């Protein structure tokens, strides 16, 4: 299917008003960040390179949809103008939240990690947010060095186009640990959410059983880490201490949420003496503070469509699930096909637009 030609000056086709909670802006190479790095760090990178825990990657079609590479030959997702014409305009996306998957958060050298965070955020402002008004961004922060992460939040926090801070799927420690609380404190001050995006690691394997042989095992691994992270945040009392903080789970699926809530509540009834700081059943914190994005869609077999509606009922939260395309990654979802057609229009409207509009306070 040919990509329709679009007038690039027409930047707000919002008839359908889809809000896409996971679009990736990519670096063509680390050198894209050189204009935003000091001479000291450019020299460092030239001499030592950027080394990081890889965790996992997306091999099919070398990360991306084979049709999303711009004519310049640069990496798919690395040119704002191309992403706008190829994706935002075509699907009439009202707003898209950028999640840059960069070395930030997984570089062993914390000084360089902090410098990279600043450079990535400046690159996002200059080459993405200033270029296309429909974009919002996740702020990257050196979360393994919380004081520096707080500095970055203070530096960028006044720019309301940053709507959340980004954690990759597997930080050094589970996300509820006290180490990360200064970050949550700063997020509460600036009205930022915390996003946890699937994949990538600061050293932990993708499964609870260790590293796996095949990419297909990596591909379905992220829910394991997300369950550990949300359980940790609940159990450590993050949401008691920061009652306005929300966590947005991106690309981790959502079918597992009801079972986790049931199991946590059952355990809490037996073990609540250990966690007296929890005033309510764990499921209530999850229902209140956890938002989830659709891609990858988890659907029952098409012969059992009722099971999907039951899943949303168990969840109790059609007001917490938000559409995400994962553009331009090869396993992403088209807005025209992602959400089952049999869902009531009201539910689809919430998933495609209303839920994210409310969470991110978009007009």
């Amino acid at each position: 299917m040919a990509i329709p030609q679009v007038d690039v000056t027409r930047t707000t086709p919002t008839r359908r008003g889809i809000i896409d909670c996971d679009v990736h802006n990519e670096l063509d190479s680390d050198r894209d960040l050189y204009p935003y790095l000091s001479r000291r760090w450019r020299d460092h990178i030239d001499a030592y390179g950027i080394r990081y825990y890889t965790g996992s990657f997306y091999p099919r079609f070398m990360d991306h949809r084979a049709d999303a590479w711009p004519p310049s030959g640069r990496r798919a997702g690395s040119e704002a103008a191309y992403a706008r014409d190829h994706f935002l305009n075509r699907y009439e996306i009202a707003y898209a939240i950028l999640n840059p998957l960069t070395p930030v958060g997984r570089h062993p050298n914390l000084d360089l990690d902090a410098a990279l965070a600043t450079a990535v955020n400046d690159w996002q402002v200059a080459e993405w947010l200033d270029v296309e008004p429909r974009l919002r961004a996740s702020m990257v922060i050196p979360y393994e060095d919380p004081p520096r992460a707080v500095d970055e939040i203070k530096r960028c926090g006044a720019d309301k186009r940053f709507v959340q801070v980004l954690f990759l799927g597997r930080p050094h420690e589970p996300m509820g640990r006290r180490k990360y609380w200064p970050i949550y404190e700063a997020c509460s001050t600036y009205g930022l959410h915390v996003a946890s995006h699937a994949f990538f690691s600061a050293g932990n394997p993708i499964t609870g059983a260790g590293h796996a042989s095949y990419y297909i095992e990596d591909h379905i691994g992220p829910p394991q880490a997300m369950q550990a992270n949300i359980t940790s945040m609940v159990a450590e009392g993050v949401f008691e201490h920061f009652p306005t903080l929300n966590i947005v789970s991106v690309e981790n699926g959502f079918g597992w949420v009801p079972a986790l809530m049931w199991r946590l509540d059952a355990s809490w009834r037996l073990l609540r003496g250990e966690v007296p700081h929890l005033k309510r059943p764990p499921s209530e914190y999850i229902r209140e503070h956890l938002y989830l994005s659709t891609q990858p869609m988890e659907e029952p077999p098409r012969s059992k469509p009722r099971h999907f509606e039951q899943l949303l009922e168990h969840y109790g939260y059609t007001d917490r699930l938000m559409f995400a395309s994962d553009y331009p990654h090869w396993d992403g979802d088209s807005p025209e096909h992602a959400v089952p057609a049999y869902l009531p229009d009201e539910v689809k409207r919430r998933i495609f637009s209303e839920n994210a509009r409310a969470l991110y306070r978009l007009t």
Partner: protein
Amino acid sequence: MKYIVAAVDEIPPGGRKIVEVAGHAVGIFNIDGEFFALRNRCPHQSGPLCEGKLWGILEARLPGEFEYVPRREILACPWHGWEFHIRTGQSWCEPARLRARRYELRIEEGSALRAEPDAPGPGLVKGPYVAETYPVSTQGRYVVVEVAGEPMPAPSPG
């Protein structure tokens, strides 16, 4: 209805051309001298199927024992890699449910095409006005796609 979509020489072995036929984008492929036509629309999520990679087939009798069949006859959609046999449109992901739309295709001599009756379609009446025409080469061989009736509807999501 017949559509002349390319001269044979335009699409070398291993090459492809995406054309418009009866309002649909159609990919014409030359595989080792044989020509095939598939609709440029993946029945999974409507991706531009014919822009995808042509791959061989990887088979395994046992875990860890792989055999690669290199003949490039499996077309993988550029979005999610759903695989279809280029000869038949048959899906190798969900064979019971999905099939790519395949078109009948022939190679015809230019002189033969020239001999076709000049009526553009059934139910049309010749009008009084005649537009300026230009001579068209009838030498060489052409790829012709035949479309009978309406295209097969795609399965609806859900």
